[in-house]
């Protein structure tokens, strides 16, 4: 059985290593502690990270805890990224935008908005792990549904889908 401080330290190590949000339930499993024991420890760790003036933070996202840098220091970090940076094409960005705001959404629904076939773009977005399959829509033909991934949040610097800006006007077309 781990001491309270050890649990906190181990949780910190786990959050550091993992570049994606990690659900509380998974932490419970890895650390082999009770959920009720872990919750206050995590609260303490979060406070510790988020009170002080430091370069890192721990965010409690929909998908779990995520250790990441504070936005204030983005400027320094952008400069040291590896040189081979790829931008998404306009077509890919549009497709991703539709998926982000309308998820889960079928290929046909995206094509209806964009007015073009998007087979290749869907494949590319799946390969880049920006979107993933999200089951089948219960309509004729049972088309596949797509949704964005945690990787999508990471690439766009969001901590959760709630961070997506609310559109000025929800269009009622």
């Amino acid at each position, binding site marked *: 059985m781990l001491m309270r401080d050890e649990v906190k330290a181990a949780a910190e190590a786990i959050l550091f290593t*993992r570049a994606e949000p990690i659900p509380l339930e998974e932490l419970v499993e890895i650390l082999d502690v009770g959920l009720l024991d872990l919750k206050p420890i995590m609260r303490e760790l979060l406070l510790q990270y988020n009170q002080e003036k430091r370069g890192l933070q721990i965010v409690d996202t929909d998908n779990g805890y995520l250790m990441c840098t504070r936005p204030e220091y983005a400027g320094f970090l952008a400069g040291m990224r*590896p040189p081979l940076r790829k931008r998404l094409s306009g077509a890919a960005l549009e497709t991703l935008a539709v998926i982000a705001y309308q998820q889960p959404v079928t290929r046909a629904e995206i094509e209806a908005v964009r007015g073009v076939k998007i087979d290749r773009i869907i494949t590319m977005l799946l390969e880049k792990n920006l979107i993933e399959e999200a089951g089948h829509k219960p309509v004729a033909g049972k088309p596949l549904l797509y949704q964005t991934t945690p990787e999508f949040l990471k690439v766009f610097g969001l901590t959760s889908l709630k961070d997506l*800006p609310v559109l000025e006007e929800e*269009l009622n*077309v």
Partner: protein
Amino acid sequence: MSYVVALEAFHGPLDLLLYLIEENQLDIYDIPIARITDQYMAYLSDTGDWDLDRLGDFLIMASYLMQLKSRMLLPKSPLESRDPEDIGIDPRDELVRRLLSYKRYRQVANYLAAMEKGDTARVFYRQPEAASRQEELVADIKSLVAAYKSLRQQLKHSQQQLDIPSGDVDVNAMMSQLMLRLRQNKRAGMDFRELLDAASNRRELLGYFLALLELLRQHQVKAVQSDHRAEIRIYLRAGNKNVNA
């Protein structure tokens, strides 16, 4: 030998030799070359068909061992002293050195395996953010939102223009409409293009075209083109019984 381990299990001839030495609890500094050579050869002859590339490495060691064995059998030259300071001339020295060196690295390999698995205390680096560091995706939320907004705008416009008609297109009604328009300017007639402009969607376009073909077939109208690049003009046919109706 009590049991035989397949040759494939060994990472190379030195691995096999070390195994034989350990199995027989031999002193690595005083290897009975004749015995070890025989055992080594037994392993090789037990081996069925497998990778010739790998077998080659084992055969090289076999010939080395045979050579060593024959050198050990030769009587010592009288010049050789029995002074223990001179053990450096033992023909086995080279083999011992290689075995010990190899053994060290085999231990390191075990250490590395344990480190990789995390069986030993080790540090962990942070996982790289992107799947591959070579190709990092950069994007910003502004461009995503902008893309979505402009799409919605486009959609709004295009939906206004391309409202899909609910009912079927009535070709008969279109024939009547066409006749009406042609009668209104019977001398001048009308351009084929004007006809197309009247359509507000593809189905209507098709309807007008079918109506025109039908009217042509019925000899109610005629289509005239002065040359192949000129506009097609459509006129009411003279003698059409409805002309002056």
